[in-house]
């Protein structure tokens, strides 16, 4: 009798070693991963996103070893070669202090990576527990959490971030704090909504009826089912938070010199437009490409992780 088309397993003798056993147990998981990869690879845009993000991480990792003038990102100045046009010596030209723009743009990946990771982690760290609590406990706890969330959602993030920075003072740390503080409500909303709908699913009820406790339900049933939307959102937000931080840098309240942050570079480069166009052009392109990468990746993730669209492919 042949079952569905799911590949048949080789019959395992009981003598099979730990390794075969392990492989057998995780076969489904790997099949799932393989399918995800397959779906992912079918979408050229997602692949581009993957490549861009991969390159971004790689550059952030090895940046200091591949740039021609690493000291230019940490404070060296060469007044005699300021504002040199792009050429063989300085691929992207130099800036107003004679520093190599290429070096600074490349090393800017580290700053952006740091910004993005910290903001997203902080926002998730605040938002996910609150969201699960609100959704799972319900009642006045839910009301309180959601009303506070509403307060933060009542104004556009950038404005609130600006207000917070106005108080804390400019600087990269402060702008990361500010952006984290405005970023978490999105996660509360997402996770709370997801938790509410998961709570209605009968597998939660089933777990309850076999005697699972609260912690077990939250950590083993609800949380794992929230991960897909969280991953999708996080990868989108990674780009968006880099963009927002660059915006703050541009206004002049974000990253401070000599940190090679792209937004801050553009903010200064702005004074040198249009004659010294390269100074503003390249950091802007860097932001664009990075954010684009994360957005495409997020899109790709959505396509493969979102059970709804997944269902569409599967049926």
């Amino acid at each position, binding site marked *: 009798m042949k079952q569905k088309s799911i590949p048949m397993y080789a019959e395992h003798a009981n003598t099979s070693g730990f390794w075969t056993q392990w492989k057998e147990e995780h076969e489904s998981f790997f099949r799932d991963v393989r399918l995800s990869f397959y779906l992912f690879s079918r979408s050229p845009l997602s692949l581009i996103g993957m490549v861009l993000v991969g390159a971004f991480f790689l550059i952030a990792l090895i940046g200091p070893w591949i740039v021609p003038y690493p000291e230019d990102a940490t*404070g*060296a*100045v060469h*007044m*005699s070669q*300021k*504002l040199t046009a792009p050429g063989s010596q300085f691929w992207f030209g130099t800036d*107003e*202090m004679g520093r190599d723009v290429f070096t600074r743009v490349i090393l800017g990946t580290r700053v952006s990576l740091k910004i993005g990771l910290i903001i997203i982690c902080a926002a998730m760290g605040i938002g996910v527990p609150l969201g699960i609590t609100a959704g799972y406990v319900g009642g006045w706890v839910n009301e309180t959490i959601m009303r506070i969330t509403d307060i933060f959602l009542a104004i556009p993030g950038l404005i609130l971030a600006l207000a917070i920075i106005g108080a804390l*003072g*400019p*600087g990269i740390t402060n702008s990361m704090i500010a952006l984290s503080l405005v970023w978490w409500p999105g996660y509360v909303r997402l996770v709370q909504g997801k938790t509410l709908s998961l709570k209605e699913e009968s597998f939660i009820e089933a777990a309850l009826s076999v005697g699972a406790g609260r912690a077990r339900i939250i950590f083993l049933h609800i949380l794992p089912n929230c991960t897909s939307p969280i991953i999708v959102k996080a990868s989108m937000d990674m780009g968006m938070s880099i963009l927002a931080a660059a915006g703050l840098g541009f206004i*002049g*309240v974000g990253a*401070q*010199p*000599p940190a090679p942050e792209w937004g801050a570079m553009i903010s*200064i480069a*702005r*004074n*040198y*437009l249009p*004659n*010294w166009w390269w100074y503003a052009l390249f950091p802007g392109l860097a932001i664009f490409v990075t954010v684009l990468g994360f957005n495409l990746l997020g899109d790709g993730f959505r396509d493969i992780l979102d059970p709804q669209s997944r269902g569409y492919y599967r049926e």
Partner: protein
Amino acid sequence: QTLEIRDGKKILVYGARQPAPNIDPSQYYDWSTRMLQQSLYDALLKYVDSPPKVIPWLATNWEASPDAKVWTFHLVKNAKFHNGDPLTAEAVKFSFERTLKIKKGPAWMLLDVLTPEGIKVVDDYTIQFTLNQPYAPFETVLPWWYIMNPKVVMAHEKDGDMGQEWMKDGDAGSGPFKKKRWEHGVLYELEAVADYWRGWENPNHIDGYIFKLIREASSQRIAIQKGECDIVEGISPEDFDLVAKMPGIYVSNDPGLTTFGIKMNNQKGYTKDINIRKAICYAFDYDSLIKIYNGNAILEDSPFPIGLKGHISLKDKIYRQDLQKAKEYMEKAGYPNGGFELEYVYVQGLEEERKMGLVLIDNLGKLGIKVKMVPLTWPNMVARGSKVDTSPDMIAIFATPVFNDPDVVAYQYHKNSWGKYYGTAHYNNPEVWKLTEQARVIADFDERMKYYEQIQNMILEDAPEVFGMQYNRRWAFRDYVKGFVFCPMRFTGEIDMYPIYIQK
């Protein structure tokens, strides 16, 4: 592309980066405000020319008692306010009293030496000030005290505020221009008073001007280039060189009195040690200051700005980059290899101060000192600098002497200035303080000068700060704008629009 002519009138556009939120002469002054005040109001005296001198304006002549305590001014007889009221000694008395009572804006200049009781109207056109104590620089202060029309001001008084609320945007002046269109945050338009009491020297004088806010230096440049503005201030040094070469544009480029220095905390931390301070002074690359301004700056050669009355050149003693010496001082201080970090605080958004910081990072790095750049908003920076404990190791300060007298600068090093923005070094040398106090009450200038020579030498020796440079005041003009006369005794971007005329 060229001058804006509207209804046959010559309207000039002045592109500026700083708004003028409050033009009440008793409440507020900074350069943009002062520029509008200069147009709307008259003062007893006026600064012109370079080096600056005080010329009679509303006052035709004046005399001081030998001890510099009693000052008598004789007014012109034909001066009248914009509404036609004659400008009399009563108005002068009112104006001085108002500023002193409100205690805002320029009040500080005279608060210590003059009380309302000391102002006496001798007759309609004579007024006498009796000071609490001798104060030699008195006359140099007066160009900043504008005369307002008491009737207009008091007509708008509300809850005993002496018309403060109204005067923010109000015009109670007698000056060559009057208020026309006020769009806060965008532009202010003024129109010439056709029958100005002093008359107009040139028949081609302008019929009005628009003070247009253009916040970005690069936009300023574009504006003058495209002819959207006729005069702009504050273009970046790089752009300035480009603009200077453009057809149809000429520039003015003269040293101002504003000094840039990096004040070090003399009371706390590493910089308490004079050796460290000297090491920093020797390590600093002064040439880069000039380079930052593309050559449009001069280095200070004394604690007092070049061009200020009482300045002497200490060319041989002033610190210049000398790494050898710097290292020696580091050794003396006990840090031959550095190994510590200093904070450099500067005003958020001030391009030049930022660049100096980058230069500092580079220079002090050679001594093994790390520099952390901390941009702060102006009030936060002042707040930090106001106490010895919180005052940063290094703080970037542009300081402009408000009137042409050595006391202005000398007093910045006095204990009474601690906590003010120019006193963030918390300079501590009681001897200098004593000399300053003695010098300001002497009437005879040559006598005073001896003190100031000593003061300058002593301050330099103590190295309380990195003595930097004086940058040039830079304006770009369309070539049909004529009549501009440079006077360093104006703050930063302001020019006197009265003598400006148009010639094609």
